[in-house]
């Protein structure tokens, strides 16, 4: 039975695409057959974060308009043979596709994949409506900032109104040092305010920048964010893994491994 998950946030720049790339790759590492769909028509990015930008021939709009078959548009990942990307169109806009067409598109993929991940554009307009139309489950990404959380709250309201089956939260870019000195909202603060289930807490990690520079998702690697994303993937497939709060993890082991990394 396949599951269709939309990754959304409302606000731009909080890490939707990074999260999509890492969660998709992580699920593939766990042996699942995964397809990532970039639904941000006109502003395509997921291909770059995945390092697949040079392999694009056809895109999502081509599939919807019948210019090609689905198989022709799907790009196989460089590293994982069970991971695919359906890129977005760069020269069109959000109105090129309707929610009804998206529902059909993901339904056509259901039989062939375990997980279908939809990377949603920022905003609450048609691009968002398209992305959530066919989804069974939503993951809302936010950061511990007033503007991002306000938008997340609005998105959660819209998802509830659209009868989304399950809505879960990822709090991204948590800076333990700032939380500790009281200059950043903690994970508990964010959970308390948004009052939905949490599926991931991802620390701010400069390796994320490096990994997107290289076009290679870092999920599963030894870095703090890589581990946090792998935990998210395990929770998605139903494993019961307690949330690691980045702000209270500085035990002996953590500091030691940090020290070793630096040396």
């Amino acid at each position, binding site marked *: 039975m396949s599951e269709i998950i939309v990754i959304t946030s409302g606000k731009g720049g909080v890490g939707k695409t990074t999260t999509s790339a890492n969660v998709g790759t992580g699920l593939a590492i766990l042996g699942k057959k995964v397809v990532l769909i970039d639904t941000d028509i006109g502003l395509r990015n997921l291909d770059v974060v995945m390092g697949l930008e040079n392999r694009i021939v056809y895109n999502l709009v081509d599939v919807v308009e019948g210019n090609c078959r689905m198989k022709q548009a799907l790009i196989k990942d460089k590293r994982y043979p069970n991971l695919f990307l359906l890129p977005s169109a760069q020269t069109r806009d959000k109105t090129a596709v309707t929610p009804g067409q998206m529902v059909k598109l993901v339904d056509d993929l259901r039989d062939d994949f375990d997980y279908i991940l939809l990377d949603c554009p920022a905003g609450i307009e048609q691009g968002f409506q398209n992305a959530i139309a066919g989804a069974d489950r939503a993951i809302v990404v936010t950061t511990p900032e007033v503007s991002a*959380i306000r938008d997340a709250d609005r998105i959660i*309201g819209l998802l509830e109104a659209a009868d989304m089956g399950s809505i879960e939260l990822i709090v991204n870019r948590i800076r333990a040092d700032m939380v500790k*000195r009281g200059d950043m909202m903690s994970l508990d603060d964010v959970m308390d305010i948004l009052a939905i289930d949490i599926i991931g807490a991802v620390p701010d990690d400069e390796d994320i920048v490096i990994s997107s520079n290289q076009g290679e998702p870092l999920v599963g690697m030894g870095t703090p964010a890589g581990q946090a994303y792998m935990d998210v993937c395990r929770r998605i497939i139903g494993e019961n893994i307690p949330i690691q709060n980045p702000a209270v993890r500085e035990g002996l082991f953590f500091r030691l491994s940090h020290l070793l990394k630096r040396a």
Partner: protein
Amino acid sequence: MNLFPVFRKKNSGEIARNRLKLLLVADKADCSPEIMQMIKDDMIRVVSRYMDIDSDRIEIQMKKLKQPDCERFTPVLYANIPIRDVPDKGIY
């Protein structure tokens, strides 16, 4: 290091949290921070007629609470009005 914690400014994380709480409910209940302030002023005026309240420490916010009869969180108006004294008006 601040040697006089009394004079220390509030941490910005706490400021963010408080702003957000107000903002979210204002978004939901469709009432702006200005309206919240007006509600607060009106409440001070009304309650002051009956008791001596500490108007500087009044806290008023919209919260999301799970009501016992309903699964969803619903907004409630929460007011915390510290009372200094209740004048004896010979009612009791």
